[in-house]
């Protein structure tokens, strides 16, 4: 195996693996914050975690294949949810849904919901593979 000076140590791997758990409460807090009060400090704090986490996904290749597989599963679920949300944006669908479409077409709520779906899926996969 070639030497990689940027390879993660065992401690770094364990720490980053445990750090992934924080995304779940943060994404739920963000969704609740958006539903309750859009100016809440809750949103600022939780959005920081959620946004930082998703930007950090660009470096997921540094994780080992087991973690990458779990993240890929969660990403698939989140993408499926995004597909459903996109479908609900179609003009004819929003006409059928009526007032309910207001919630379903709010971009911030959809993104926060997508984050919740991602983290719930990730938690489900991690717990089932323990």
């Amino acid at each position: 195996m070639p030497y990689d000076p940027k390879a993660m140590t065992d401690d770094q791997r364990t720490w980053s693996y445990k750090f992934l758990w924080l995304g779940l409460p943060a994404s739920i807090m963000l969704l609740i914050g958006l539903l309750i009060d859009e100016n809440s400090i809750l949103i600022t704090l939780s959005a920081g975690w959620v946004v930082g986490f998703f930007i950090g996904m660009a470096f997921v290749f540094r994780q080992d294949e087991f973690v990458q597989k779990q993240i890929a599963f969660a990403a698939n679920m989140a993408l499926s949810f995004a597909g459903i949300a996109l479908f609900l944006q179609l003009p004819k669908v929003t006409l059928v849904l009526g007032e309910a479409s207001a919630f379903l077409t709010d971009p911030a709520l959809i993104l926060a919901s997508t984050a919740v779906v991602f983290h719930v899926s990730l938690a489900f996969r991690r717990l089932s593979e323990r």
Partner: protein
Amino acid sequence: MKNRLKVLRAERDWSQADLGVHLDVSRQAVNAIETGKHDPSLPLAFRIARLFDMSIEEIFDDQF
């Protein structure tokens, strides 16, 4: 997939974390492979085989 990883690791008195360091994967990944919840990729299977100086077929069994 059934495998002999736990036995081979125990013979060398290695912890899961020790084996993880040798294979450049996390302790959680070693645990998932040992319990059959994660099938390693081909490159990782080769690394495991080389580490124990055995063939992949001697370590992993896909008949179960």
